[in-house]
């Protein structure tokens, strides 16, 4: 019996060692262009809600973490190809993505999307022209809504398009639009918020179950002691848990 115990312990340690070997440094991939979730600060470092969250998660899971930035377009192909170990980039949990990668439990409530338009603008949901960043869930939402969709490569350009009259309104995550609406007197939210996509979670390779469990447990512990809610409030991301 004792021998058996030692045996399992040794096996567990061995598995642990293999895990430690492949994950002595966990690389976190982010986009770095999506405040308040993640952005590059004045010093050129990754900052934002997810930076603080990720650092805390790594501390709780006792992992050494490193931050890397990657273009949004190729962020999933680079994960499955093994260039980093986790995506923490404001990525909503969707069925499409879930087929390719695994997600931890969500660490934000589903974020509503909102329309931002020029002050005093009446939105024509059918005949209007709406801007969105190419390849986002908002872009496909507008296409399905039946309105005219204009796609731009970066979120910056979508805002600029509303300012110069190319588009009537822009549809994007509310947390991204809020600081912009707050600061510019000529822009305002119109219409009702819409819910597309689930909450945001960490994306991991499907073959990387052990790392997922570690992060899952760490997120749960942050949910339990309220520190996650504190972070969400600090960065004004909307609903808490």
């Amino acid at each position, binding site marked *: 019996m004792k021998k058996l115990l030692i045996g399992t312990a040794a096996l567990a340690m061995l598995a642990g060692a*293999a895990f430690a070997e492949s994950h002595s440094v966990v*690389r976190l991939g982010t986009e770095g262009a999506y*405040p308040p979730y993640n952005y590059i600060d004045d010093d*050129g*470092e990754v900052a934002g809600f997810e930076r603080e969250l990720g650092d805390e998660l790594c501390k709780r899971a006792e992992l050494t973490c490193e931050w890397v930035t990657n273009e949004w377009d190729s962020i999933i192909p680079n994960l499955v190809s*093994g260039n980093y170990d986790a995506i923490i980039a404001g990525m909503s949990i969707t069925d499409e993505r879930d087929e390719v990668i695994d997600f931890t439990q969500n660490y934000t409530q589903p974020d509503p999307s909102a329309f931002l338009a020029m002050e005093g603008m009446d939105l024509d949901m059918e005949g209007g022209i709406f801007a969105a960043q190419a390849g986002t869930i908002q872009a496909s939402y507008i296409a399905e809504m039946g309105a005219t969709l204009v796609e731009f490569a970066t979120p*910056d350009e979508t805002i600029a398009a509303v300012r110069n009259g190319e588009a009537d309104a822009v549809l994007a995550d509310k947390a991204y639009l809020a*600081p912009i609406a707050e600061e510019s007197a000529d822009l305002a939210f119109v219409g009702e918020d819409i819910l597309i996509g689930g909450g945001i979670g960490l994306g991991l390779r499907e073959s990387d179950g052990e790392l997922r469990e570690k992060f899952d447990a760490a997120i749960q512990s942050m949910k339990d002691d309220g520190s996650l809610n504190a972070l969400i409030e600090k960065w004004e991301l909307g609903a808490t848990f």
Partner: protein
Amino acid sequence: MFGFCTDPDTLSGLSWMACYLTTGKHMAIYWSVGTVLLLLAITAPAALAFGFAGASAARSRILPLSWLGRGYIAIVRGVPDIAFFLFFVIALDQFFEWIRHKAKCPDWDQPIRQGNDFVVCAEAKLPLGNAAQWVHETYGFFLAVLTFAIVFGAFAANVLFGAMRAVPRAQMETAEAYGMSPRQCYWRILVPQMWVYALPGLSNLWMVLIKATPLLFLLGVEDIVYWARELGGAKTARFTDYPHGDWRMWYFLALLVFYLMFTRVSEIVLDRIMKRLTHGQATSGGEAQRKAA
């Protein structure tokens, strides 16, 4: 950077600008200028090497080798470079890791492709999972250089292939008459003489290469254009000490000046090289130089 930058809210005018232009983020854009220049400096000879190999293969007498060379030139030249860059780096990276995996972990029993995942053993990872950040960046840079070299190598091969055929036939015949072996003819007569015919094409290629550097961000290298976009976009006061509107216009103007200056300097230098190369050559340019002297 400067002592007075601690509280940017109180600054205005020139001192604000001085602080703004020396933030860590702006340092990154200045660094990226160096990155781009370094990449060009490494890629140019590498692409030339690929081109030389490709052209030599294309004119080889061994048929399969010739097909390989011609196929490389035709296919890579036929594809827009963006399309190439969008998937090639990941493919290259997986290829290297697969080779290392085969060599280092022969008794690995799991499949390499698990669903969508590409999984190799930890020792085969490139760079190793626990390597420092700069190793990862250097490796990414190396992959970018290699991709650029492969793409532009095909164009260089096309140029060199044409140049090798442009060397006057009489020169080769004379060499053969002197009893040189085909190998000697190739290395002593053809290769030294072809450069003057290749240079106009190669200098055009260099200009194209300079202007292809904005595509570096597709390869995961943070180049000047990436930073110009990032810095120029409108910034709200919540996320920076230096809020401003949409300044992409000014950043791109700076890039425009940078590229124009770079092109101009290259033109002048290449002109000089052309003058040197024409010296003593059996072309009309060489003839004109000889007469003038």
